[in-house]
């Protein structure tokens, strides 16, 4: 698997050039190995299938079921990012990566978790590394991204859910678990692929990332959860209309759709435009 990472940098010229005044990371590509490419497509489907099988149980007892499925979801996501995504710092964020053609991981301006960089160097020393070291070099950033997901993303999403109208005095465990699921779906891959890159996170808060599988799944999770709130007030008296269920269903569907859609050539690398000026600006640049 190790040599594959180098070719990840080779894929970057395919992406449309980012605006030069925004020195942020280009869109993330799925690793080119066959397993990665197959699994990256199977993964959203797998998540949806798993969600569908547990749907009844979630309706019956949301708190218990969400809690018991959270470790499994986390494992599946970890597996996905390790298999399919380049860890933070491995992708050359800018042209500076040309200085290290042999090993894409040693990006000098990487502000990602130090562990990733160190192990990258470690891997450089042992060119013919055994696969264990390689896996370890992936596993550590994955674990770090997990801790960030639970320590930062979950509270932020919980607050957002409450601000959007989730009950504050009741249903607290549901809210937190819903936020945790959404965080694992969206933030794990983001932090794994980008670490704490300030420029990237500025773009994330501004919904200005170029579309790729990572960003597409994160944005899809958020939008899906937003649309998932719509059926809650309806008076159909269905048990699945209870608070976190529709939001989570929306988030899962949004995650799957987003991660697949963002990789299609039509969407890949494009950015969300807010105002007409932004649109015309990019037109000027491309011309």
């Amino acid at each position, binding site marked *: 698997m190790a040599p594959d990472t180098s070719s990840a940098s080779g894929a970057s010229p395919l992406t449309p050039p980012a605006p030069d005044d925004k020195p942020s990371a280009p869109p993330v590509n799925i690793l080119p190995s066959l397993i990665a490419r197959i699994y990256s497509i199977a993964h959203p489907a797998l998540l949806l299938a798993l969600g569908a099988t547990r749907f009844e149980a979630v309706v019956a007892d949301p708190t218990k079921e969400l809690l018991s499925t959270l470790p499994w979801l986390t494992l599946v996501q970890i597996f996905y990012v390790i298999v399919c995504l380049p860890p933070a710092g491995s992708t050359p964020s800018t042209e500076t990566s040309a200085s290290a053609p042999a090993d894409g991981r040693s990006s000098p301006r990487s502000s990602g978790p130090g562990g990733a960089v160190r192990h990258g160097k470690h891997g450089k020393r042992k060119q013919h590394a055994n696969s264990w070291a390689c896996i370890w070099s992936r596993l550590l950033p994955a674990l770090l991204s997990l801790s960030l997901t639970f320590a930062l993303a979950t509270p932020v999403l919980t607050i*957002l859910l*409450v*601000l*959007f*109208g989730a009950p504050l005095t009741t249903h607290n465990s549901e809210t937190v678990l819903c936020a945790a699921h959404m965080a694992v779906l969206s933030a794990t891959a983001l932090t794994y692929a980008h670490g704490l890159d300030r420029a990237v996170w*500025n773009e994330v*808060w*501004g*919904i*200005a990332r170029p579309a790729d599988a990572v960003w597409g799944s994160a944005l899809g999770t958020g939008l899906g959860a*937003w649309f998932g*709130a719509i059926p809650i*007030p*309806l*008076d159909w008296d269905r048990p699945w209309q209870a608070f976190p269920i529709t939001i989570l269903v929306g988030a899962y569907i949004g995650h799957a759709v987003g991660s697949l859609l963002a990789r299609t050539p039509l969407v890949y690398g494009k950015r969300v*435009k*807010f*105002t*007409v000026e*932004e*649109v015309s600006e990019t037109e000027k640049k491309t011309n």
Partner: protein
Amino acid sequence: MVVTPPAGAMETSPNPNGPKSGLPAATPRSSDQSASGQSKRKQAGLLDKKALELEDEFKAKHFGVMGVLAWILLLHVAGIYLFTKGFLLTRMVLENKSSCDVLPFEDILAQPRTTALGSKQQKGCWHEKTFDKAVVIIVDALRYDFTVPFASKGESDTVHLFHNNIPVLYETAVENPANAFLLPFIADPPTTTLNRLKGLTTGTLPTFLEAGSNFAGTAIDEDNLVAQLHSAGKNLVHLGDDTWQSLFPGYFDTNLTHAYDSFNVWDLHTVDNGVNEHLFPLLRPENSKKWDVIFGHYLGVDHAGHRYGPNHAAMASKLQEMDRVIRDIIAALDDKTLLVVMGDHGMDIKGDHGGESDDEIEAALWMYSKRGIFGRTSKDTLLPPQFARDRFVPQIDLVPTLSLLLGMPIPFNNLGSPIEEVFSGPRGNNWANLATVNRLTAAQVKRYQHQYALARGAGDDEESALLWTAAEEEWKSASKGFSSKSTAARASNELYRKYQRHTLDTCRGLWARFDVPSMIQGVVILFTSIVLLIIYARGLKTDRTQLTSRLLQFASMGAGVGAVAGSVLGLTGLTEISIVDGAVLLAAAGSILGATPALIKKPASLPLPVPNGMWGWLALFFTVSQSIGFASNSYTIWEDEILLFFLTTFGVCAGISSMRQRQTTDRVLGVYHSILFVILGRIASFSRLCREEQMPFCRSTYYASSTSSTSAPWQLAIPFLVTLFLPSVVRSFYAGSKSYEGAASLWIGFAFRFGLFITSLFWILEGADDGEWLPVSKETLKFIRVFLAQFVLALAFAAGTAAYFYCKPCVSINVSKPTEDPNSPPAPIVAGQQQGPRTTVTILGFGNVYGTHFCFLLINFALAIILMQKPMGQGAIALLLWQILSLLEILDTNNLTLSNSSIGPVVLGVLGSFYYFKTGHQATLSSIQWETAFIPLTSIQYPWSPLLVILNTFGAQILAAIAVPLTVLWKRPLQTHDRVPASNPNKNPATRILSDVVQAAGTHILYLATINLATTMWAGHLRRHLMLYRIFSPRFMMGSVVLAVVDIVLMVVAVGGVRWSTLSVGEIFGW
């Protein structure tokens, strides 16, 4: 907060010689400047002339745009009128009266009159009378569950304070069934006292239109029980609620009658004490010849409900007082007199009424006589039912019952049935009598139906005719072998009864008949006016003020031609349309047709009004998705939560957009205000008043408890918090652009705060009155309160408006020499300017000259609206003001102020609707806080009382509407004619402001008009829906009233107010 220097202060160096210096902005026309040279004065004269021209142009165009807004208002009113006329139920009022000597049967007319009229009246007209006299007591809002021992409906149901306090009715009915009975008494909505009294005396069904006339009752011209009693020569006495006086003017004995003001709901005792004072002397034996029927109307229970809610000690003691009163009346009663005690409606869990929820319609009826004439036809009916739904009588049943008991003819329009308990005899087996009274009633119903069908030009209903024939057959067979126990009598009784109920149902269906063509006309007018508004507010690229004269000319010509044509059409009688309707319809259509060519004169200046950019789409999405949502009763019920969802969505989008800003200050300020905006909205969402349909997923926090309508003691702290923080918050927004100068510090820092403090005192006194904390009489407290409230209103409206008209912009102008002031940064030195010691003019607050001045108007209205809210609502309005200011900063940092984005006015619309719910209102009639009319007044005064209630009800929407011009004025850079770009030299910058303001106002109206059109269309489309009168119809009415109120406020206050803020800026900085 970080401030960009150009937005905060402007520094400039006026050149005394060169005409090219040309910064009249920096030559304030203060008197100390007048000591300049002669040449400068000439120059100033020229400038003045040009400025005067520009000023006059601005004033003229300002009137023009107000005219356009007035035209839009009239279009809306016309559309709403036409729809309402077809939608609200109508019923023909027949003038026929029943008379004593004409029995309702057709065959009787042919018979010779055997008995003289005099003896008939002695024994009773249509039926032998049972009582000579009656005392009819109405205990307003006497709900059925107040009168029966508490029976648990479920596990969570426990005894409340209002239970088991008035046991006399139940006790007598159980102990002496022949002397008394107690039954649930179901009202036909709307459950307002005026409508209920109409139903209780005419025996007919109300139509919805009458719900609005509670403030000004009109005399009943239909046949009714009171009129029958009066024409039979009975001496009638009325005591209590003065609604009777407006319904039955001139029917009551003027010497004995005493009416009391009915709307002062703060006052629990005046009416009741007055009734007691005059009732009991009349009951004494020596006075018994003076009267025949007394109508006593107690209001204490109703007022306790409105003021405190049912679950309050005041309600318990009021009910106990009623218990004593009824016992006293029983003791004073003689054998010949019937005593009736009833509620005209119930009350919801907060003690309000008007709608059609179960609690509101379930009243109680109790009749008592010392003679023991009441019976029960079955053992099951011996005890009064535990719950109101078990075995009830409709309220209109009182009319035939009381008429026949007192020997009166049944009023012509009656649809009620005689109450079984009254006519079945003490042993409950007098079927012959029951059959007789039911036959009489049914015959009268039949006669009425026949006349109504004739008047409508329709035939009789076949099914009811069949029922009637069957009943008559049975009756005839019964009268052959006549005995009181005969089964035939019983069977015919059943059939007559069936006939009556069948007719009642038919009438309910009949009067729910809508005039669909008129509704469609209204919807079409509303729809086309929205299309025009879309073109006017969102489509045009040109200056809107240039269109005004042509637009108004064409529209008024069209309206004139249409009005004439409509009147002619109505006069000729070619169509069924009346003159007024025809004139309104064609005038509206004519003005629309006339205005269209004026608007789309040049297709080049008319791009397709499609939103550009995310903000435009978001605004469109908010408007359209909400409009679609009103088709579903769920989204209508949960509107408050959905609005919070939208507001948070906007806040998140604003935060995202702010993150994309290039300037760090814009980014930081934008993100800060976006987060603030979202959090403030979420805090406000904790103030809730749940509607019945939201239960059990909602917890009311607006009042002390869900069964109360007073504030909890801790809530009285909210006004003080508002006093403490709100002026400082407003100040921080002024200080952001260094505009806390001039009048601002006096008005915001002192007057506004003082007004808020007085408001807090007012509500403390209010709480003291409720809780009886102070050893001061209620009159004194009320006097002080009214004084305080009037003072605050005077401060807000009289002093505030005067201050707004005359005060200068919030800027401070310092003239200083740079060498003497080392702290100030050096003035920019322009090449070619002469060097040397010069004075530097520093203008603080320059970056927000238009906005800060106009904001005074917003603050004035905020003060008045805060006074008119309950403490929880005051906190909500304070949050609203904060959120509005935060929104303005978001708009500024995201460059949405000058780009005329639709998002600002639309989010203001969403904010207005959201805070409507956060100030203790719902889209239901019962949530109207009528009692707030008495905050600054002691009695009902027109037109002030309705205006005060509007200020309370639609305070949030009014405040949001006034803020609309700020979406284009806030931090707008100063523009004068010599500062505009050279490409457009003849342009008056003041009219550009006007054009932007009217565009924002148009967009705001567009949001509300779309909501109104949607609710109107859905109400019309779902007119057969089960929830029509509970959900869709109130929402439609709310949408219409909000649209009209906001149209007027935008025209008069918001756009009207722009005149003075622009003039004051022009006065200082030139035009």
